[in-house]
């Protein structure tokens, strides 16, 4: 199976002014596409190596699969995590997710504060996640390095929201001021998507 670039559910400029159209286009058409291209290539080489029984090659390919497959997984979620304001971007979570946030973090403001602090403190490249631990039925904030998917931090973690803090996600607009990017991205956060994922994993009793 080969993977292909999923369409963005909105125009490149639709998230302005929070995230510029220039960034969205590069991020989607160049960065995400490159991960997919290299992921497909690595998978092809992996199938080859498996067929030949070349264990050394199988092992050697793992990092390329993790980098590029992880990049594909993470960005596919990311595009759904964002929405234009007129389609509900930035609208606060209601219902069961809203209550869970209050229960597990005290308030939405505190959750945002925590995620932004984690995002600013992340050294190098990576992601900040709002996750559901589906075993403990608890919300947690996690970070992953580079393109490691959330599941590398725990097999029971389900991503609800991810924020890309690689420099390519904000540099052209915010330059070195990552805190401003993190402050503004909440204006286009697609809480509807997060609520849907949450409700599916934790159906209200």
């Amino acid at each position, binding site marked *: 199976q080969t993977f292909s670039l999923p369409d963005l559910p909105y125009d490149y400029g639709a998230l302005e002014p929070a995230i510029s159209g220039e960034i969205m286009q590069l991020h989607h058409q160049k960065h995400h596409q490159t991960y997919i291209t290299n992921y497909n290539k690595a998978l092809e080489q992996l199938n080859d190596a498996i067929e030949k029984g070349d264990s050394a090659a199988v092992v050697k390919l793992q990092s390329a699969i993790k*980098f590029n497959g992880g990049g594909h997984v993470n960005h596919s979620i990311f595009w759904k995590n964002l929405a234009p304001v007129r389609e509900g971007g930035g609208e606060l979570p209601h219902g069961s997710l809203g209550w869970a946030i209050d229960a597990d973090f005290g308030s939405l403001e505190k959750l945002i504060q925590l995620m932004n602090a984690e995002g600013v403190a992340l*050294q*190098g490249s990576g992601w900040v996640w709002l996750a559901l631990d589906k075993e403990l039925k608890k919300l947690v904030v996690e970070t992953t390095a*580079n*393109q490691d998917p959330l599941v590398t931090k725990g097999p029971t973690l389900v991503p609800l929201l991810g924020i890309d803090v690689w*420099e*390519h996600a904000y540099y*052209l607009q915010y*330059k*070195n001021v990552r805190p401003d990017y993190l402050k503004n991205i909440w204006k286009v956060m697609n809480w509807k998507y997060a609520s849907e994922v949450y409700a599916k994993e934790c159906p209200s009793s």
Partner: protein
Amino acid sequence: MVPAAATAASLNCALFHRQGGLNRATRGLQWTKKQQCTRKPGPAIITAKFELKPPPYPLNALEPHMSKDTLEYHWGKHHRAYVDNLNKQIVGTELDSMPLEDVVIVTYNKGDMLPAFNNAAQAWNHEFFWGCMKPGGGGKPSGELLQLIERDFGSFEKFVEEFKSAAATQFGSGWAWLVYKANRLDVENAVNPRPLEEDKKLVVVKSSNAVNPLVWDYSPLLTIDVWEHAYYLDFQNRRPDYISTFMEKLVSWEAASARLEVAKAQAAEREKEEQRKRDEAEDIQGSEAVEMYVDGETEDSGAD
């Protein structure tokens, strides 16, 4: 690449030659915040001492290959922040009195990094990086550096290929390096008895985030910053183009050659020092009486 484990002994040696000798009391990495800050008379502004030095050329001097905008942000914001934040972290501590290279190695802490490592290493890395470039750079090295490159990589072209590949495949944030590896054995009770010139090699390595080859006891000769902030304004996602431009138009081979001379001199110094210590130890051993146990003279005879 396998990082050479820096034992306490070699850590001391490394630091000895970089400055004047590190107090052996810091072997156990027991640095703590001083209980008292000594204050000079006058306005009580306490700052640690590292300075943001400007690059050795004006900020627009690398145009069109690296824009003034990039230098203004990269040096003026990113590098400045590393220096300012490092100073805040170390003021009033023992780290405040050390040269930057020593702060890097001490805070690396054999891989269990202390909080100041990120800022210290990035401060060092960026100062080094500006020195690796010059207006009208590029071309080929000459003299001994070229000789060693041809010896250790086969040809200059093969070196360039390997260096560019390392820079392009460093995933996420990081750096690619050309280093001089003095190839010392880092095991406490084993010493390379005949360190040969031929064993010392030039090697290409890559590192992630703030890590640099000082912590592996290598001598860096050349680096390229492949954090996205280094190239995004000028090249966006096109890191390979940035890397090619760096090699063809920016790299300062004079600076690399100068560093090679320093690295070789340091390696020779260290070897002399180690030989001197071994000679000393042998002298002491030779003058000690050797205990011998002879049958029938043991104090504890078994129960009769």
